[in-house]
């Protein structure tokens, strides 16, 4: 792929000239590797900018080449998975690159997610954490269609509040060292 092809593609998609110039500023192999991904998955400009940021930063930090990152097995497997549609492939590939760019954040998010899962709450009780874990707060959402259901949910939530895993979630949000479990383990009551 020549610079002209990339230029023509970016112009046809209305990408900002700054984005295009940045892309063209990459080494030929990196430029082409990204071009293949962008064309195959019809990547929009906002996603493209995120990918460029993350790829450049991973390459700089790990002293690796962007084309090597994109040729890594996890990316290639996702890109060639026939079960995934184009949008899902983009979503999964982007998440894979984000996880490599933010490994400890992803690990902490996973550890919190595992603990929330282990609480085995009913679907009407939703526990989430903010994007990037900023704010350090656990968000709780309840939805009930009657007073009785509401009471039952509150009881269930009160039980969960005393669970050791909830203590660990808050410890993780506050930056305390907690054993990071990546898979669900047996429930432990405090």
């Amino acid at each position, binding site marked *: 792929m020549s610079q002209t092809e990339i230029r023509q593609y970016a112009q046809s998609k209305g990408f900002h000239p700054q984005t295009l110039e940045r892309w063209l500023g990459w080494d030929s192999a990196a430029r082409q590797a990204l071009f293949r991904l962008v064309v195959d998955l019809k990547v929009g400009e906002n996603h493209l900018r995120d990918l460029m940021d993350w790829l*450049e*930063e*991973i390459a*700089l*930090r790990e002293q690796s080449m962007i084309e090597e990152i994109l040729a890594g097995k996890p990316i290639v497997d996702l890109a060639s998975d026939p079960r995934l549609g184009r949008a899902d492939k983009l979503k999964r590939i982007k998440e894979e690159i984000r996880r490599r*760019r*933010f*490994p*400890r*954040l992803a690990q*902490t998010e996973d550890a919190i997610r595992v603990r929330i899962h282990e609480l085995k709450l009913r679907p009407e009780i939703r526990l989430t954490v903010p*994007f*990037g*874990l*900023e*704010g*350090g*707060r656990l968000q709780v959402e309840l939805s009930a269609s009657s007073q009785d259901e509401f009471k039952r949910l509150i009881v269930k939530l009160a039980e969960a509040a005393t669970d050791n895993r909830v203590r660990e979630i808050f410890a*993780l*949000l*506050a*930056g*305390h*060292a907690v054993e990071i479990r990546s898979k669900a383990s047996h429930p432990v009551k405090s």
Partner: protein
Amino acid sequence: MQLFQPQEVIVERGSEASPIYRNLRTALPGVPFRIVDAFAAESDRTSVSAGTFGAAKRRLVLTRHKGEFLKKCPGSEGQVCCNYFVINFASNCPMDCSYCYLQEYLADNPELKVFSNVGDLLNEGDELLSKHRRFFFRIGTGEITDSLALDPYIGFAREVVPFFADQPNVLLELKTKSDCVDGLLGLDPKDRVVVSWSMNPQRVIDLDEHETASLSERLVAARRCQNAGYRLGFHFDPIVEYPNWEVDYEEMLNQIFSSVDWRKIAWLSMGVLRATPSLKRIIRDRFPRTQLLTGEQVRCPDGKLRYFQPLRVEMYRRMLGWIRRAAPTVKVYLCMESKEVWEQVFGFAPSCEKELGNQMVPSF
């Protein structure tokens, strides 16, 4: 630390009578001076580029400041503020840190300027301080420049320190990454002046604090100031996270506390590396090889990128632990952080900026 040697000094007509002009003439005998009627900034016509900002630091402009010198520190939206005032006696800085926010803040006005009308500055200070004697003020000069890096050439400290030293309701903070303290040593601060250093391990200085004094030079300067009767401050800001950062930062703190008497320290502050997305683009252009932007920084509610909260809280807590081990009661605060982060680090958050500002006032 390397001497600052501008390629040229441009003097706006009317500034020749100021003491700053005389000091510059004496300190820079080999540098060409050019008197102009009005300084037309080249950057009025071109926005900052990788070359413009760096080039602007190599030419010094002496001009009158047309606006107010004294301003409330703007802080950062939604973050706990320490109720601080700033005096802008100069604009931009001869040093060139990769992460410097002035690259964005002064992008359209990057000239290295020093303001000649110091008398107006002192009049403003006098008006504020004498009108509000019941209030205690903390005023700093290091918001959009380094407080001392230009001092050997402009002699600003000896023009203003005697005035502030005589005021009963102020602490003047001179914040620097230089070791340019000679101009301070013959003055009597009368307990009203804090000289403070922005501190980082030598590795960070080597990689990202270009043209600044080394860690050991800063420590020697701090000790000299302490011996001359100045209170000291240290700002661990920006704290940079990298593999084994803990080893370097703990060692740096050990060096600080073995160099100076912590009981003479007025305050310490901590803040992690932060950048707006726009500053990030500028850093990427000007310093493409810096590793600063490869940390795990996420966008915070005030729009700035910081290390994700659990990570930076852990960093602050570790720093605080090393500080407390050596200096159990020294005042420590966080710069531009939310109440949630304060609570996670200290176990409390100041209820308002006045409370934090009051906590920062030392006993006399």
